[in-house]
C-alpha cells in the first residue's frame, strides 16, 4: 500500500477544523521544531529529505532556503505560492480546502527555519472561498497559540496572512507574485537581484509552493532520512498528481514518486484506465507547459524502459522523446482528441496570460495562436508548420521570465511528435473539421536530438 504523507487524513470528517486536525497528530511538527530543534536543524532535515519544489521547477528546497540573505535588522519573508493556474493543476486547492491546517503548520515550521516573523499565502483570486477556509483556520491557530507572539512559550513570533490575486497566471511566477503582493501589476522582475536577496518590499524572500510547504510537516515529524527513503534516486517522497482528461477516475492522487506511469494510468487505485474503452493518444504529464508525449512514449521511454513517475524518468530522452514532471498536472487524451486543436487552445492561453513586457513573448504567443487557429480551421498552409517551429524557437530563451518557454515547449513538442497530424490538417482541410486524425505512427529515436 502506497504511503500517504500529506493526504493521509484528508477524508477524516471535520479535518478542516482545528480540533480534529490536532487530534489526528496536527501541530506536532511545530511542537517538535520549536522545542527541540534550531532553525538550522530544520533546514538540515529538509536538505536530507531531498524535497524538491512542487511548484514546477523541482529545485531542491533545502538548498533554496540556504540561499536566503540574512542582513542584520532586515525582516525576511516566506511567501506561499497558492496561485495554482497552470492548466491541468488543481492539487493545491484540494489540499487547502481539505486540510488547511497542514499548510498553516508547514508555514509555521518553514518560517521558523528561515527566521521569518511575518509570512503570507498568496492565493489566486478565483479561490476566494478557499481564502475564507484558510482565514478561518488561521484564526483557530491564533486562538490556540500556534500563531502570534511567543508561540507555545517558545519565544518565537509569527504572523500569517492570506492575500488574493485577481486573475493572472503570470502571478504564479515568483517575482510577479511579489509585485502583485505589493499591490501592483504582475510584471515579472529581471533577475538578479534574486528574491532571496531582494524580494517582497526589497527584503530577503523565499517563495515556495503549497505542496512543498506542506511536505515540510512530515519531514520534521519523521526526519529527513525517512522521507528520503521513499522514492527513486533524486525523486524522493510523495507527490500530489492532478489527473484529468479522458480517464475513468480524474482527481487528486498522492503517489510515492517512482510508481510506474502504466500503474498510475491503468490501476484502480489511481486513474482507473481510459474512459469508454478508448485508446490513449497522448499525455501531458506535468501541466500545460511541459512537452506532450505521443501514445508510444507514455508508459515506456524511447529506449524501451518502463517510464516512472519521477523527475528523471519523465524527462528521459530530453525534449526529443521525454517530458517533465512539472507541477504534476497529468492530462490524458484519448484517440478522439485533436492535437492541433489542443495546441491552439494552449497557445491561446499563453497569449492571454502573457504580461506583455517582452516582445518575443507578447508577439510570439499571439502569432502562434493565429497560425494554429488557421491550421485547426482548415485554412493553413504547409509553410505554417515551419513558421510555427521558427516562432517557438525565437521565443524560447529570449524572455524575462519562463512563461515564454512555457508557451514555446508545447508547440515544439506537438510538431515534433504529431507533424503528420498537422500536415493532414493542411491536406484535408474539410475532413479535419469533421473527424479526427487518430493515433500517430511510431517513430524511432536513435539519438537524443532535441
Amino acid at each position: 500500500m502506497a504511503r500517504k504523507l500529506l493526504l493521509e487524513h484528508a477524508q477524516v470528517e471535520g479535518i478542516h477544523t482545528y480540533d480534529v486536525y490536532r487530534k489526528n497528530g496536527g501541530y506536532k511538527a511545530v511542537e517538535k521544531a520549536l522545542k527541540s530543534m534550531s532553525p538550522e536543524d530544520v533546514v538540515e532535515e529538509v536538505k536530507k529529505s531531498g524535497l524538491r519544489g512542487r511548484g514546477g521547477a523541482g529545485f531542491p528546497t533545502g538548498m533554496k532556503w540556504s540561499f536566503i540573505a540574512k542582513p542584520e535588522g532586515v525582516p525576511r519573508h516566506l511567501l506561499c505560492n497558492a496561485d495554482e493556474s497552470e492548466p491541468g493543476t488543481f492539487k493545491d486547492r484540494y489540499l487547502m480546502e481539505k486540510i488547511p491546517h497542514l499548510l498553516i503548520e508547514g508555514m509555521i515550521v518553514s518560517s521558523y527555519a528561515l527566521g521569518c516573523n511575518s509570512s503570507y499565502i498568496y492565493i489566486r483570486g478565483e479561490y476566494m472561498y478557499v481564502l475564507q477556509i484558510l482565514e478561518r483556520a488561521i484564526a483557530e491557530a491564533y486562538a490556540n497559540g500556534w500563531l502570534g507572539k511567543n508561540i507555545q512559550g517558545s519565544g518565537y513570533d509569527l504572523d500569517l496572512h492570506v492575500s488574493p490575486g485577481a486573475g493572472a497566471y503570470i502571478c504564479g511566477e515568483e517575482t510577479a507574485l511579489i509585485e502583485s503582493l505589493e499591490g501592483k501589476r504582475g510584471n515579472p522582475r529581471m533577475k538578479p537581484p534574486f528574491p532571496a536577496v531582494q524580494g517582497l518590499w526589497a527584503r530577503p524572500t523565499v517563495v515556495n509552493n503549497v505542496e512543498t510547504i506542506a511536505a515540510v510537516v512530515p519531514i520534521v515529524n519523521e526526519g529527513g532520512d525517512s522521507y528520503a527513503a521513499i522514492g527513486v534516486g533524486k525523486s524522493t517522497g510523495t507527490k500530489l498528481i492532478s489527473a484529468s482528461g479522458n480517464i475513468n477516475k480524474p482527481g487528486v492522487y498522492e503517489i510515492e514518486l517512482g510508481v510506474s506511469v502504466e500503474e498510475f494510468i491503468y490501476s484502480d487505485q489511481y486513474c482507473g484506465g481510459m474512459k469508454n474503452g478508448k485508446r490513449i493518444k497522448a499525455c501531458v504529464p506535468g501541466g500545460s507547459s511541459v512537452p506532450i508525449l505521443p501514445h508510444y512514449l507514455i508508459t515506456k521511454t524511447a529506449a524501451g524502459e518502463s517510464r516512472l513517475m519521477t523527475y528523471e524518468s519523465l524527462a528521459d530522452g530530453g525534449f526529443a522523446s521525454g517530458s517533465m514532471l512539472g507541477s504534476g498536472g497529468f492530462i490524458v487524451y484519448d484517440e478522439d482528441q485533436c492535437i492541433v486543436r489542443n495546441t491552439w487552445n494552449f497557445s491561446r492561453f499563453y497569449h492571454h496570460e502573457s504580461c506583455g513586457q517582452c516582445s518575443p513573448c507578447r508577439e510570439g504567443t499571439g502569432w502562434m495562436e493565429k497560425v494554429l487557429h488557421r491550421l485547426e480551421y482548415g485554412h493553413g498552409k504547409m509553410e505554417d508548420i515551419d513558421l510555427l517551429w521558427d516562432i517557438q524557437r525565437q521565443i524560447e530563451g529570449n524572455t524575462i521570465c519562463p512563461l515564454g518557454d512555457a508557451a514555446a515547449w508545447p508547440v515544439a513538442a506537438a510538431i515534433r511528435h504529431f507533424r503528420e497530424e498537422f500536415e493532414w490538417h493542411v491536406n484535408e482541410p474539410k475532413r479535419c473539421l469533421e473527424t479526427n486524425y487518430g493515433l500517430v505512427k511510431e517513430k524511432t529515436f536513435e539519438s537524443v536530438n532535441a
Partner: protein
Amino acid sequence: MTENQEIQFPEHLLKEVGRIISQFPEGKQKSALIRVLHIAQAHFGYLSTPVMDYVARLLHILPIEVYEVATFYSMYDTQPVGRVKLEVCRTGPCMIEGAETIVSYIEKKLGIKDGETTSDGIFTLKTVECLGACGYAPMLQAGEKFHEHLTEEKVDQLIEMYRNKPVANYMGLENNG
C-alpha cells in the same frame, strides 16, 4: 452611483478594509489594493472610475496606481456587467471534456454570446482560462462558487437558481450592483 459622495463603503466594509491594511507593515498599505478592489467590485457591481478613485483615497495612493491594477487582472470589470457572471472554463482539460458544448448551450439558452450580458441585466457569459478544477470538468464559476461536472440539465438548474438568488462574490458578500 453617479454622484461621487454616494460612493462610500458601509461601516462593516470599512472595518474589513482596516483589517486588511493592518496585515501589512506600516507604509505598505498598497498591498491591500487587490483585495480592496475585490470588495469594491462585489459591493458596487463594477469598478467605475469614481469607485477606483475612492479606493485610491482609502489607501492613500494615486488613482493611476489603482487604474493600472484594475486593468491588468482579468477578474476585475471596469464596465458594467450582469448581476451574475457565468465564467466557463475553456482551457484544454475542460475543452476535451465538453466545455465548448456547455458554452454554446448557455449562448443559445440566454441568447447572448461570450462576453455579452442578457437584456434584463441578470447574466453575463464569459469564457475564462483554467480555474483549477480540471478533474471535475466541464465547470463554471458563478461569483465565488465553483459548479463542476456540468451537464445541460445542471446548467438549466443553475440559471433558474441564480435568476432569483443573489450570487456570493467576496467571502459571502452579495453583489448589490
